[in-house]
C-alpha cells in the first residue's frame, strides 16, 4: 500500500479525483457545462480569471480535465515522474485557473511533436518543454475569439471561425515548433537561475506577437478581465487539503522523512534540479506539501484572498517543490518582493503585485546559491521589473510574465555574482 501511495503519479490522481468531486459538489452539471463553454471561448489572455468567466465548478472541471490529460499522456509515453515533469503538471493545473484549457493547448503540443519528428527524436524527448509550453496558449484563444476578423475584412460573422480557427491553430503550432530550440538557448541567458526558463522564452516570442498584432488598429490588445475572490474559502480549503495529502503521502512512505529534509534544503535549486531523482519521492512530496502550507501562511499573514491567478501561483510553487524550490530559497526572495512593495509606491491592491509575491520564487535559486541577502535583493529587483516586462508583452499572451521578468533579474545579477564569488562553491556539499 505504502509503495503505491509513494508514487507522485498517485498523488496527482488523488488531486484529479478531489478537483472533479469538488466541481460536482459546488455546481450542477448544466452550470458546469455552460461555464466550461464560456472558458473555452474566452480569449484567455492575462488576466482571465476562469473563476469569473465560468464559475467555480467549471474552473475546477477545467483544471481536472487538463490534469487528467497530461497524466494520461505521461502514462502513454511511459515517462518517469521526474521533478520537472511533476512541476510541469502542477504548473499546468495552476494556470488552468486562468488561461489554459484543452482547446488552446493542443496546437502547441502538435507544433512540438512536428519539431521532434523533424529532429528524428521521440516526442517524449521534449516533454518538459511540452509541459511548460502552454504558457503562451492565450495566443491561440486570442486569434480565434479575441479578433473580430469578419468586421476587420467586412465579411459575414461566420467568417470569424473560418479565419480565426486556422489562424489560432497555425500560430500555436508555429510557437510549439520553435520553442524547444529557443528554450534550450534562453537557459544560457540566466544560467539556470530562473526556474521559469520556458516562461522567459515565451516572453520573447510573445513580444514578437505583440509587436506584430499592435501594428493593426483593428486589433484590440487590451482585453484582460476582472478577477473574483468569491471562492476564497473553498480554494483555501483545497490548498490546505492538497498540502496535507502530499505531506501524508511522504510520511506514509517514510516516517523519518523530515530528517532528510534538510539535505534537500541545502541545494541551490538551480536548473536542472530534479529533487525526486536526487533526494527521493518522500522528501520531495514533503517539500511540495510544506511549500503549499507556506503559501497559505503568507497569504493569510498579508490578508490576501485567493482568486484564479493566485491559485495558479500556489500550485506552481508547490509543483516546483520537486524542481528547485524549497522554503529556504523561497522565503528570502518573497521577503524581497514584499519589501519592494512596502518601500515603493507599488501596492498589493492590484493582482499583479499579489501574484508576483508567489511567482517571485522563480529566482529562488539565487537565494539558494548566494544566500539570504542576495535573495532578498533578487526578490526586490524582480518586483520592480515585472510590470515593465508586461509592457513589452502587450496583449498578455504569455501567462508566465513573471518568468520573463525573472530571466532579466538572473541575467543582471549572476554574471556579477559569479565574478565576485570564489570558484570553489563551498556552500554546497
Amino acid at each position, binding site marked *: 500500500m505504502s509503495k503505491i501511495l509513494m508514487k507522485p503519479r498517485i498523488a496527482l490522481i488523488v488531486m484529479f479525483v478531489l478537483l472533479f468531486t469538488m466541481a460536482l459538489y459546488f455546481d450542477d452539471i448544466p452550470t458546469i457545462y455552460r461555464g466550461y463553454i464560456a472558458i473555452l471561448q474566452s480569449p484567455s489572455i492575462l488576466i482571465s480569471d476562469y473563476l469569473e468567466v465560468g464559475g467555480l465548478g467549471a474552473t475546477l472541471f477545467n483544471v481536472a480535465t487538463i490534469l487528467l490529460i497530461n497524466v494520461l499522456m505521461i502514462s502513454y509515453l511511459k515517462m518517469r515522474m521526474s521533478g520537472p515533469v511533476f512541476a510541469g503538471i502542477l504548473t499546468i493545473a495552476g494556470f488552468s485557473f486562468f488561461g489554459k484549457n484543452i482547446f488552446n493547448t493542443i496546437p502547441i503540443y502538435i507544433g512540438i511533436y512536428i519539431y521532434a519528428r523533424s*529532429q*528524428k527524436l521521440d516526442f517524449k524527448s521534449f516533454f*518538459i518543454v511540452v509541459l511548460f509550453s502552454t504558457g503562451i496558449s492565450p495566443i491561440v484563444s486570442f486569434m480565434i475569439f479575441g479578433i473580430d476578423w469578419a468586421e476587420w475584412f467586412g465579411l459575414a460573422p461566420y467568417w470569424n471561425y473560418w479565419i480565426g480557427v486556422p489562424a489560432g491553430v497555425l500560430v500555436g503550432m508555429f510557437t510549439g515548433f520553435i520553442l524547444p530550440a529557443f528554450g*534550450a538557448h534562453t*537557459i*544560457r541567458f540566466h544560467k539556470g537561475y530562473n526556474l521559469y526558463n520556458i516562461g522567459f522564452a515565451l516572453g520573447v516570442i510573445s513580444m514578437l506577437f505583440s509587436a506584430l498584432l499592435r501594428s493593426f488598429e483593428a486589433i484590440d490588445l487590451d482585453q484582460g478581465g476582472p478577477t473574483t475572490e468569491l471562492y476564497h474559502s473553498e480554494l483555501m480549503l483545497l490548498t490546505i487539503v492538497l498540502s496535507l495529502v502530499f505531506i501524508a503521502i511522504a510520511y506514509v512512505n517514510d516516517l523519518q522523512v523530515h530528517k532528510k529534509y534538510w539535505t534537500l534544503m541545502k541545494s541551490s535549486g538551480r536548473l536542472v534540479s530534479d529533487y525526486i*531523482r536526487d533526494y527521493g519521492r518522500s522528501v520531495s512530496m514533503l517539500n511540495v506539501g510544506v511549500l503549499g502550507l507556506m503559501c497559505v501562511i503568507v497569504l493569510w499573514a498579508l490578508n490576501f484572498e485567493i482568486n484564479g491567478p493566485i491559485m495558479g501561483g500556489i500550485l506552481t510553487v508547490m509543483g516546483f517543490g520537486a524542481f528547485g524550490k524549497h522554503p529556504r530559497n523561497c522565503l528570502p526572495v518573497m521577503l524581497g518582493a514584499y519589501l519592494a512593495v512596502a518601500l515603493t509606491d507599488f501596492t498589493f491592491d492590484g493582482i499583479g503585485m499579489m501574484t508576483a509575491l508567489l511567482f517571485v520564487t522563480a529566482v529562488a535559486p539565487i537565494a539558494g*546559491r548566494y544566500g539570504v541577502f542576495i535573495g532578498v535583493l533578487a526578490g526586490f529587483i524582480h518586483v520592480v521589473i515585472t510590470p515593465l516586462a508586461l509592457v513589452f508583452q502587450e496583449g498578455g499572451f504569455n501567462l508566465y510574465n513573471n518568468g520573463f521578468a525573472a530571466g532579466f533579474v538572473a541575467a543582471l545579477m549572476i554574471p556579477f555574482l*559569479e565574478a565576485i564569488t570564489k570558484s570553489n562553491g563551498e556552500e554546497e556539499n
Partner: protein
Amino acid sequence: MSKQEIKLLTKIVRELSMILLIHGYRRFTLTTDYGKAETRFFLNVKNLDDELRDHIEEKVNREREIEVETYGWELVGDIDSHSELEILGLLIDYVEIEQDGDETFLTFVRKSMYKSKE
C-alpha cells in the same frame, strides 16, 4: 554526426575539465574517441580524491534522461559549484573507473542521441 551532437560533445569536454579545475587538479589528460554510435571520453588523473571519485561515479551512473537533456543541455560546461554533476550525469550513459596505483582512469561513455542528417 549532427551539429547538435557536436556541440554537446564539446560541452562535455569543457565540463569534465571544469570539474577537475574547480577541485584544484591542475594536471590531467583528457582524450576522446568520437564514434558514430557512441563517444568515449578518457580521463586520466593522479591522486584523485576518493570522495570526488565516488561522487562522480554516483552522479554519472544514474539513468540518462533524454527529456531533461533536451531541456538543459546548454547549461553543460557552465558549472559554478563543486558538487554540480547532475547535468553531466544526464548526458553520460555510464562511467567506468579503474585505479592503478595513484592514477585513476575514468572512461565516460555517451551513446549518440541525435541521428546524423548528412
